[in-house]
């Protein structure tokens, strides 16, 4: 897919294999939304050759199995293994909930074999990173991530796993991923400029988890004055009543737009912290904020509770009428006005 041939000036193209297991395919669908440039141009720019991707490649059936054998038997070097979807270990550790088609072998065994040979291993999406939605409920299917099971280090590959390059599994967590999170990380990995220092405590790229979803949130002014939405479709801050985790969640969703201009909060619904391990079982209804004596349980990261309570009551008392009335409607009722403009 790369138009350029290998040449002395041009570094060797990095070979990428993409597998899907216990997931929905939504991370691939999101990846196809890559823009500026499109996905295929981005792969080319990153000097990546896609050996096989289930949604994009021509090869099917035995052609794919023989490619995988070539990798396992050392005839083809695999630079980057991407897994999308959880590792399916059930029932009872047999992996029978996903026998890879055409191979008569559990997908989890293929993943483990290939990961040990790969230069880099990338978990695409919350499922591949931590188990994700597929592990919700009682996790009867024994879903796990590549190097985590929920918040527990380990997963399929074990907590001490390092790929050929010496890196741990890179967790592009999200449900789904933002295309930019993956494309940029793959580019850095391919260029060999990616290191442990670029990752956070959950193995995620700091490039996007150094931010909180709160950063750049278009409802910040409502947050400042605790002018809260009371129901979904209201314009106010969704933290107090509607379960929004934007002040805790680590991602740049309100700095880096989705589908041109969007984000969950901009779409009128709360952040559910989908970049985090175990987001799938929050212990409460997703769109309701759990409270203890009227105070939301999940306070902003780093914020002492007493300060939050004091500041919240102060700012509530100071809420301008404009915000108070806009917070509880689905469209702007009172626009800001410029007091220096003399009424004519």
């Amino acid at each position, binding site marked *: *897919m790369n138009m350029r041939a290998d040449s002395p000036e041009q570094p060797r193209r990095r070979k990428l294999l993409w597998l*899907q*297991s216990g*997931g*929905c*395919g*939504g*991370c691939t*669908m*999101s990846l*196809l*939304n890559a*823009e500026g440039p*499109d996905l*295929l141009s981005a792969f080319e720019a990153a000097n990546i050759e*896609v050996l*096989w991707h*289930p949604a*994009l*490649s*021509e090869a*099917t*059936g035995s052609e794919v*199995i023989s490619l995988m054998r070539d990798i396992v038997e050392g005839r083809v070097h695999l630079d980057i293994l991407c897994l999308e979807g959880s590792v*399916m270990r059930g*029932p009872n550790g047999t992996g029978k*909930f996903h*026998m*890879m*088609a*055409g*191979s008569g072998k559990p*997908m989890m065994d293929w993943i483990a074999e290939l990961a040990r040979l790969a230069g880099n291993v990338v978990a695409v999406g919350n499922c591949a990173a931590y188990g994700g*939605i*597929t592990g*919700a*409920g*009682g996790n009867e*299917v024994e879903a796990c991530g590549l190097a985590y099971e929920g918040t527990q280090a380990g997963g399929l590959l074990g907590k001490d796993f390092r790929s050929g390059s010496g890196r741990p599994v890179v967790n592009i967590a999200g*449900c*789904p991923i933002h295309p930019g999170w993956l494309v940029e990380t793959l580019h850095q990995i391919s260029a060999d400029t990616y290191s442990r220092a670029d990752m956070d405590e959950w193995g995620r790229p700091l490039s996007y988890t150094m931010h909180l979803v709160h950063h750049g949130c278009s409802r910040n002014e409502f947050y400042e004055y605790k002018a809260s939405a009371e129901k*979904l*479709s209201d314009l106010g801050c969704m933290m107090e009543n509607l379960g929004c985790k934007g002040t805790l969640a680590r991602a740049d969703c309100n700095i880096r*737009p*989705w*589908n*041109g*201009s*969007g*984000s*969950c909060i*901009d*779409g*009128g619904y709360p952040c*559910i912290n989908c970049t985090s391990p175990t987001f799938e079982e929050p212990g409460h*209804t*997703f*769109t309701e904020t759990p409270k203890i004596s009227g105070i939301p349980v999940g306070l902003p990261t780093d914020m002492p509770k007493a300060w939050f309570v004091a500041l919240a009551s102060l700012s509530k008392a100071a809420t301008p009428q404009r915000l108070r009335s806009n917070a509880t409607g*689905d*469209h702007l009722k009172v626009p800001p006005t410029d007091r220096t403009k003399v009424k004519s």
Partner: protein
Amino acid sequence: MSRLVVGPFNRVEGDLEVKLEISGNQVKEARVNSPLYRGFERILRDKAPLDALIYTPRICGICSVSQSMAAAEALAQAQGLRLPPNGRIANNIVHAAENIADHLSHFYLFFMPDFAREVYAAYPWYADAAERFKAMTGTAAADVLPARAEFLHLMGILAGKWPHTLSIRPGGSTRAVTANEIARMQAIVSGFRRFLQRFLFGDTLERIAAIASGEELAAWAAERPSYSSDFRHFLHLSAALELDRLGRATDRFMSFGAYRAEEGHLFARGVYEDGAIRPLVTAQITEDVSNAWYVQDGQPMDPFSGRTEPDADAPDAYSWCKAPRLGGKVMEVGAIARQVVDGNPLIRDLVSQGGGNVHSRVVARVTEIAHLVLAIEKLLGEIEPGKPFCVQGKIDGSAAVAGLTEAARGSLGHWMLVENGRIANYQIIAPTTWNFSPRDMDGKPGALELALEGAPVRKGEKEPVAVQHIVRSFDPCLVCTVH
């Protein structure tokens, strides 16, 4: 007699394995295996009903909005909600945008690359097809990806993001758009229309939507050279390879109806069989697990009482897919079913000539894009900024409700039982569950299994190309199939 196992069957959504019994140069029997089980129906037990709007879209990355629409409709019934017009319209636009994007992905990324396979290298049309449609390197992929991504900016405005939006609620949409945002969406759709008219159709959407018979379609195709548009290119290849003689299934078509209007749907609900339309009786829908890896029920189950108890060692089983039937019969679903049920004259004519086949399925899907973009243009003009987009309700006590809609690839239903304010049972029957079902207790094969019987196999083929065309003509989504 010989056997072939084709898998991983890619350029479908999810993993797929097809086992073929070959006799001479033909497929004699096919068994279709959906090899991945995740168990969403069990995950949903005991959850708060509204949390279905978080979990069910994540069944599927390619039809997540359709999953949301089915869940929201069931929840609206449970709360007795009537959507305000703006909410209904906004959700319809989001839903139509997803279905258009899916049709586009299917045509360009999943289906057409098979004509660029080596097996066709000696054909006179090969060089053109390969230049345009070769997977990843063809010129079409470079054209379609930016156009698709920019079209999905509609989602950024109306749904926050795609896939996995939470903007679709039982009472409407969480995202009230303003007049300037409507203008921006109209501009996005206008840009997309230019792409479609230049690359996909080589003609106006209105002209495509007005084609009323197979003969008119052939005449339209002959007006200009095949390379002048991608749809003409397909029609040329289809004629050369006689795709209208490939992959016929039951010719019984079902649609749950798509895009609710004030009354009824934009595309009607119903069943089409033997040239006649009849109403859909949802009470006739059952699921059978005789050949699937589940604890056996001994009889087909109504979805409200259906259960999902995996048993990886179930005897005689060969798929995680259950076998849904309507009145005991195998149904085909998809764009072709939606259009033939709705009375689309072109698709009615194609079906009356050759039934459901590779050609008619693809024509129905591609021409539906034109109909849907025209519908979105109209719907955008009907939004009334400033009026409500969402009403609220409450679920208490019990309910037995079903949300029925159409994903790009066919009929999707969610059956939900609520007891004491929690989900007591949740059963999902997805489009590809219908199309790719295994055999039922009477041994009746599913629609794809039937469509594959008689497919030609060339000498030495391990992945018969005819089988690939037939399988992909259904636009399967395996992650939905088993969920």
